[in-house]
């Protein structure tokens, strides 16, 4: 039996929020101090204040780039989720299909996405689609694996119970296997959302006319290094916000899954 340590709300707030934020503030302050004391040139490592002011000066365009990347991330993530679920169901439906499909999936993972991206641009044209496809290819694999793991992790007794009730395979999937896989689906979604940000930037490096990845490429080319760092910070923030959004969706709609998470994952 696991009894969570009873800590007062105030003490928990200090541990959860105040300590990490404090540590981050100290880190940023030290960074600023080091750069100034040792006169580090801005094109090598800019000061946090320079990163902030240079990025804030271009707030309008930076916002546009951020939204463009968000769009690619979310489209790629949505594609991963929509395609991974039926794919995982298919793989787990029979050993024959699993043997046929798994090697193909592994093959898609062994292709370097950066190398594939220019070819995708040739195929799909110079638009949003190749970026979304790259994002999808980077993000979907761990999601398929964790959903498949969830579908097959159902206790055999529950499957026997379903069979004893003469439930159809469809009903068994829909009422036992898929609900049981929910905590696994969410751990896969958390990996996928983080990877989607990586995928979107890879896509933008290869072909884009906007987006934070594009901003990094163009600003470093013109030695606007603080702006590139600003884009980097925004990408990290985007990753954190989207990850937390997945966590919140799980907490709100599947509160029971959090406990299962702690016990089995």
């Amino acid at each position, binding site marked *: 039996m696991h009894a969570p340590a009873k800590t007062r709300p105030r003490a928990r707030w200090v541990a959860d929020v105040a300590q990490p934020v404090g540590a981050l503030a100290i880190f940023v302050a030290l960074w600023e101090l080091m750069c100034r004391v040792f006169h580090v040139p801005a094109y090598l490592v800019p000061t946090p204040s320079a990163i902030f002011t240079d990025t804030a000066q271009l707030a309008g365009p930076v916002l546009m780039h951020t939204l463009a990347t968000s769009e690619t991330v979310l489209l790629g993530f949505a594609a991963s989720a929509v395609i991974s679920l039926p794919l995982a169901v298919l793989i787990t439906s029979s050993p024959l299909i699993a043997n046929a499909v798994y090697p193909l999936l592994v093959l898609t993972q062994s292709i370097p996405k950066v190398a594939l991206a220019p070819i995708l641009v040739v195929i799909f044209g110079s638009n949003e689609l190749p970026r979304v496809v790259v994002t999808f290819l980077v993000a979907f694999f761990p999601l398929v694996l964790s959903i498949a793991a969830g579908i097959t992790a159902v206790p055999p*007794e529950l499957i026997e*119970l379903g069979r004893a*009730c003469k439930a159809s395979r469809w009903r068994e999937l829909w009422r036992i296997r898929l609900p049981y896989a929910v905590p696994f689906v969410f751990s896969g979604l958390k990996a996928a959302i983080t990877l989607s940000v990586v995928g979107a930037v890879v896509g933008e490096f290869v072909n884009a006319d906007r987006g934070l990845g594009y901003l990094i490429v163009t600003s470093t080319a013109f030695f606007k290094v603080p702006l590139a760092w600003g884009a980097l910070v925004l990408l990290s923030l985007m990753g954190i916000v989207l990850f937390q959004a997945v966590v919140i969706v799980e907490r709100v709609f599947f509160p029971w899954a959090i406990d299962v998470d702690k016990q089995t994952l």
Partner: protein
Amino acid sequence: MIVLEHVAKTFVSRGGEEVAALADASLQARRNEFVCLVGPSGCGKSTLLRLVAGLVAPTAGTISIAGSAVTEPRADTGIVFQAPTLLPWATVLDNVLFPLDMMGRLDAAGRARALDLLALVGLTGFEGKYPRELSGGMQQRAGICRALVHEPDILLMDEPFGALDALTREELTIEVMRIWRERPKTILFVTHSIPEAVLLADRVVVMSARPGRVAEIVEVNLPRPRDFDMEARREFQQATHRIRELIFGARHARAG
């Protein structure tokens, strides 16, 4: 009620080897009889239960319930597993109703029956709770309700108290006898505990391992209702002694 004639079950392992889980088991259980199956690990007790449940098909021999051969799962059997395996996303009431839902037989009468059963096992007030909010013993009580909700004539229990602590185990043993008295059923109960088997059963089927078969059937001549104080009685000790003898051989039984 339940008749097994020369039933054998052989599984094929991953390596392609044949493993005999059960060889030539014959057994009869009368209507509303309480039959316990004891024996060492690997004697095919759980396999025997799954054969009766229609979840696996025998390699040889026949199994029939009320005169008709068992070829697939039947609506008149209910199963309780070692682990409660409740659905973590469903409330206690929905868990109990789950078999009816899977059979497509969910109705008001079923709900009323589920609430009745929860009252019978002392879980009134917990209908809306989730399994994680219940103790292991309470989860298994809910598991028993789930097995009874479609009013089966036969209850198959596969080491239902195996995962519980000793005190909860005694409590639930008494509880199962009370439920059986109030809702008579034919019960096949698999256990590793010899005293538990003797206390519960009208007859104890002692099995031996590798390959699994019925060694002997021991009649228990204790009056009902029974409780744990009966462990001191001579009939109780005779029965447990005889079962130990069958399982461990004569010398060990005398020493124990």
